[in-house]
C-alpha cells in the first residue's frame, strides 16, 4: 500500500502514566526530579512510546520496503509545557509529505514525513511528532 499525502490513521488513546515516565527516564539514565512523582513531566522523546498502544489501522503505512527503511529524522514540538502524568491524549497520525531524491549511488531514494498529533480530550493540539522515513535506493540490477 502506498498511502497518499493527507492519509490519516485511526485515532487512539494514550494515557500518560507516571510509572512509564519513570521507566523511560531510567532508560535515558536521567535522575531529573521532573520525571518523578505524581506531576512527572514527559521527557522530550517520550511520546514515541505511545505507538505501543496504536491499534490496527492507526499507523500510516508509507509502503516502504522494510529492508531499505531508515529513520532519518525525528522531531517533537510542544505547544506549551510538555504533557504530564495523568493526562489522556488523543493520538492520530497523518502523512504530511512524500518526496524523492537521487540516491548517492544511483537509483531513487524515497522520503515520507509522518506527523503524529497529540491532543487533549477537548481536542487542543498539545504536541506533535514528525518522523522522516527514508527508503534507500534499490541495489543495482547487476548485483
Amino acid at each position, binding site marked *: 500500500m502506498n498511502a497518499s499525502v493527507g492519509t490519516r490513521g485511526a485515532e487512539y488513546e494514550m494515557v500518560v502514566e507516571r510509572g*512509564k515516565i519513570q*521507566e*523511560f527516564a*531510567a*532508560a*535515558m*539514565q*536521567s535522575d*531529573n526530579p*521532573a*520525571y518523578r512523582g505524581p506531576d512527572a*513531566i514527559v*521527557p*522530550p*522523546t517520550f511520546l*514515541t*512510546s505511545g*505507538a*505501543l498502544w496504536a491499534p490496527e489501522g492507526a499507523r500510516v503505512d508509507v509502503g516502504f520496503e522494510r529492508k531499505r527503511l*531508515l*529513520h*532519518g*529524522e*525525528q*522531531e*517533537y*514540538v*510542544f*505547544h506549551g*509545557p*510538555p504533557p504530564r502524568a495523568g493526562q489522556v491524549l488523543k493520538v492520530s497520525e497523518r502523512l504530511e509529505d512524500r518526496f524523492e531524491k537521487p540516491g548517492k549511488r544511483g537509483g531513487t531514494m524515497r522520503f515520507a514525513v509522518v506527523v503524529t498529533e497529540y491532543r487533549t480530550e477537548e481536542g487542543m493540539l498539545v504536541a506533535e511528532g*514528525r518522523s522522516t522515513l527514508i527508503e534507500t535506493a534499490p541495489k543495482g540490477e547487476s548485483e
Partner: protein
Amino acid sequence: MSALSSPPLEVGAKVPAKDFGPLTRQMFVRYAGASGDFNPMHYDDTMARSAGFRSVFSQGMHSAALLASVAVDWLGADNVRRFRVRFREQVWPEDVLTCSGEVISVDRQDDGWLVGVELTAARQTGGVAVSACATFLLPG
C-alpha cells in the same frame, strides 16, 4: 528597554557535556522496554548478524533520548518546546557517547526568552551518531 529583563544566556554558552557509556546490551534492552521499540536488531545478536551487522546496535531514539537529557537537565523539562534529531551513525555495544552542545540563538518573545541549542552525541571515534537542535522557552 529598562522594563525588559536581560537575556538569561548568551549565544555560544556551552551545554554542560556528559558522557554515556560504555553502552551495554542491557541498556538497549531497557530502552526497548521503555519505548516499546522491539526491533530485534537491538537485542538479538544472532538476528543482527544474519542481517549483516557485526552485532546488535543501539536504537537511534535511545541516543536521541540521552542527548535530549543533557539539554533538558540544564534548561528545564517544563521549558522544552522543540527537539529535532537527525540520525547519522550507528551506535554499538561498548561505545561511549559524549553529549554536548551550545546556545545558537536567544530571542525575546512576549512570554519569555526563546533559546535555541545545537547538540551532538559523538562516539569515541569522533563520529557524530546523532545531532539535534532544541528550543526552550525560558521565563523572564
